[in-house]
């Protein structure tokens, strides 16, 4: 899209689908100087970008209905593969030092900052935001990665500590990641909302299987490209584009999923919570921001509320003596 805009006079193009459509119409009949190379949107799974094993895709349209691209329509098997990849990555990622995780999350912010233009254009397309709103959303999303990069080596001190037991024992509690978290990303907040639900999950050492916004999944795959080039090990974040109602039941009942973030699960949330009960999977129910757009996620200090639901407290005792 960006390349195609270059065909037109500098400054005349407005980023977005309308501009592309207009450009195409204006250029009808003319031989383009160069044909733009479009992106094939695939899944992000185990650090690679495979198509859905089902071979299915679905059309994604802009806020005003213009066709933007075809996204992969993830299947039940893709969901299972994603859980496998996330489980495989869990030991390594949770075993990284907190400092190292912080640096990698900060690196995500750095790489994302360099692609501001792309993300902003994507939001204008997908959500029909003004360019200024889109810029503000991207800035906040980048800053959110910085925010959680700073949390990686602090939440254990804030949430854990020494317990003064009544006896000659050293006793200490510390939070640990619960494991694989299936995240249903908010439907109407495809970039900042998505970032806001992924970052706290992985900052604490969990790995994630994310079902993206069904109607606006493209920003998620752009974000995957950022994650893939930020030293985040493959499998720590796995992104499935498609329908929460279709793949959600398989994630909710999967015995190797430790927790669910139901933010974007919509009307399926109750069904998923029930399915989760079978293996006592932890559940974060949809909060007040779930139904909102990107602007519902602007709070610059979300605190620990999206980290604690995916943490376990481990308490270690040891006798004191000579």
């Amino acid at each position, binding site marked *: 899209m960006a390349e195609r805009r270059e065909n037109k006079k500098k400054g005349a193009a407005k980023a977005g689908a309308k501009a592309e459509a207009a450009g195409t119409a204006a250029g009808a009949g003319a031989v383009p100087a160069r044909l733009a190379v479009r992106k094939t949107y695939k899944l992000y799974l185990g650090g690679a970008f495979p198509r859905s094993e089902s071979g299915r895709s679905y059309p994604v349209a802009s806020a005003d209905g213009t066709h933007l691209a075809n996204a992969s329509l993830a299947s039940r098997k893709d969901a299972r593969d994603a859980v496998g990849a996330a489980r495989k990555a869990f030991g390594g990622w949770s075993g990284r030092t907190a400092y190292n995780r912080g640096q990698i999350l900060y690196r995500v912010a750095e790489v994302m900052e360099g692609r501001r233009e792309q993300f902003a254009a994507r939001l204008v397309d997908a959500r029909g935001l003004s360019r200024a709103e889109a810029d503000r959303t991207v800035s906040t999303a980048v800053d959110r990665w910085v925010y959680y990069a700073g949390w990686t080596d602090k939440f254990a001190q804030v*949430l854990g500590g020494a*317990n003064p037991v009544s006896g000659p024992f050293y006793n200490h509690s510390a939070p640990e990641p619960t494991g694989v978290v299936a995240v249903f990303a908010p439907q109407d907040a495809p970039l900042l909302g998505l970032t806001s639900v992924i970052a706290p999950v992985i900052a604490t050492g969990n790995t994630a299987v994310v079902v993206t916004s069904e109607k606006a999944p493209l920003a998620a795959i752009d974000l995957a490209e950022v994650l893939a080039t930020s030293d985040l090990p493959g499998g720590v974040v796995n992104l499935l584009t498609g329908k929460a109602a279709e793949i959600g039941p398989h994630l909710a009942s999967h015995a190797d999923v430790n927790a669910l973030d139901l933010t974007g699960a919509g009307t399926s949330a109750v069904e998923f919570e029930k399915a989760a009960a079978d293996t006592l999977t932890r559940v974060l129910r949809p909060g007040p921001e779930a139904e909102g757009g990107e602007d519902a996620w602007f709070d610059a200090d979300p605190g620990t509320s999206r980290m604690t639901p995916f943490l376990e407290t481990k308490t270690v005792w040891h*006798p004191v003596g000579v």
Partner: protein
Amino acid sequence: MIFEYAPAPESRSVVSLRETYDLFIDGEFTPARSGEYLTTLNPADEEKLAQVAVAAPEDVDRAVAAARRAYDTVWSRMSGAERGKYLFRIARIIQERSRELAVLESMDNGKPIKETRDVDLPLVAAHFFYYAGWADKLSHAGLGPDPRPLGVAAQVIPWNFPLLMLAWKIAPALATGNTVVLKPAETTPLTALVFAQICQEADLPPGVVNILTGAGETGRALVQHPGTDKVAFTGSTEVGRQIARAVAGTDKRVTLELGGKGANIVYDDAALDQAVEGVVSGIFFNQGHVCCAGSRLLVQESIAEEFLPRLKERISKLRLGDPLDKNTDIGAINSAAQLERVRELTATADEENVERWSPACELPERGYWFAPTVLTGVSQAHRVAREEIFGPVLSVLTFRTPEEAVTKANNTPYGLSAGVWTEKGSRMLWTAERLRAGVIWSNTFNKFDPTSPFGGYKESGYGREGGRHGLEAYLG
């Protein structure tokens, strides 16, 4: 030299049992609308102790309504400092009446007086004392500047530590400004009913604590009651699943403390005498009726031949018998039904060709008894290595490397507790870091304290009880 032990029974005279006990609703004892009673027995001799009312659904309605009224009109409006003073007062009365409660607990539950007197009751009092001090300091708990109570809590507790589980549920709920409706276990309701009397003695406002006795049906009606804001349950994983399903789609908060199959890892460099003591108390404390019991011994292969005979020798010295005898180490199995479950699961070991050993041990003729049992040659596939037996039965497995120990320890859907025995600090910490369990006891086992958070990973449930963490379950 062999010392003979003369019987040293604790006197029952400190306990005055009523013939029947009614429900405790809105500060008064009141008959159940069902008109039904169940009998609670002494599992050590099968003698009837008392008749206890069975709460019907309309009794649950009454109790929840009383709790709501007390929440709205009194408890949520009272200053934290004053709430705390009620809890301090309750802690003191429990200390004053601790011998009576210990004897009653041993009679109703079957656990040795040594344990009720030295473990259960001191912890019960300490738990109330600890949370009493939190009541006016909640804004410092790291849960926001003005954390609010949830409202009415429905609480269901098991029979293995009847009064201690009551304390774990009621103390944090009240300290945070919630009111409660609590159902004690069908087989061990008596100390909860004495606790109700203590609430009266402490002048606790009516309705703040309501105690409903009954069986599974009463518990189901309580946890499904639409008028509560919170469900706290300790018990089986199966019932935990049902509760998690039942609250889906509601705004209720839930904490679940469920089953376990704890591993107790003994490395080759462990202090063996201490490890033997720890393994014994890990599984035989409270007849193994402990969700966090170290029911799987993982001993390093190189010392297994030396360790097991020492373990068996120590087990042969355990004294099984009258729970009220001060020398008793192992008391009665809590109920006929539980005895049946222990027998049934242990019998699968025979079918699966696991070697079974028990010391020469005379079981009393009356009552529910099961000799301490060690199963060797157990593999991870055996049922006795996978399922919670909840009795005095230890499954022994071996390992060669630390990695194998951790893998085997974590190879369970549960994740409540684990033990590590080694003299090497770095190895202890390495192991503790990798064990997926909520409580790790290193070079000790089965230690509890009100300041120390307790609760599980995975299918052992969610939420923590005890410590600052325990407040989170009752604040919004």
